């Protein structure tokens, strides 16, 4: 088997993806797109889990990724149904317009 990818490169890629997710989460105004940026962040963390699982020779990191994917699926289901209920009531998914509780 050829030499494996150094772990630092994978972690660096994971950090870049996580930062892109953070900037998108802070910037986007459509609630569904904010959710997609959360998924980018979760994917970046999954990549660093797998990189460490590779480095330490243990499969615990991959099991952790399985659980992260499961929790992400549950979170997306509930979060998107909240957005659907919100859209039915307010006819918009723009986070700047959802300001009834603002002071």
């Amino acid at each position, binding site marked *: 088997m050829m030499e494996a990818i150094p772990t630092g490169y994978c972690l660096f890629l994971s950090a870049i993806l*996580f930062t892109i997710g953070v900037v998108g989460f802070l910037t986007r105004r459509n609630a569904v797109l904010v959710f997609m940026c959360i*998924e980018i962040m979760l994917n970046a963390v999954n990549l660093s889990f797998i990189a460490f699982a590779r480095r330490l020779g243990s499969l615990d990191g991959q099991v952790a990724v*399985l659980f992260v994917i499961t929790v992400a699926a549950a979170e997306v289901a509930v979060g998107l149904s909240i957005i659907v209920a919100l859209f039915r009531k307010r006819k918009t998914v723009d986070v700047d317009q959802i300001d009834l509780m603002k002071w």
Partner: protein
Amino acid sequence: MEAAVFLVVGLVAVIAAAMVVTGRNAVHAALFLIINIVSLAILFLLLGAEFVAAIQIVVYAGAIMVLFLYVVMFSGAAATPEGPDRLAWQRRIAVVAGLMLLVLAVKVISHGGLGPVPAGKQVAGSPAVIGEIVFTQYALPFEIASLLLLVAMVGAIALAKEKKE
């Protein structure tokens, strides 16, 4: 050869994520996120996580992103592009905060000992091996995860139901 694949796939993942974050069209953003997820699945394959790569494609790209596309089309986000921000300097502050986070993360990563992977210690994540670990060592989190999925399903239906007057 592995390094070339890693470079290309990593570049595709970063560009796709950047297009999700800066695109105007919500449907295009969802499709770019699918590209990001699939390229990460290829990276998982490179790193010896075969079962997780398959699960990533089937669950993430196949189910979660389809759910996203449903809601994008339901909420009419495809037709209306985003207007200007309410806070004028929000975008710049967000980019600055993101860059600070990136500098911090790189500093933490380069702190030590993360060079090439020591050979001979890797176990490929085939379904048999992962299944053995999940059903013996991590059986309790597995059961809790299935309970969580049940709760999420019931909650999603209860939240999104049309209320009958």
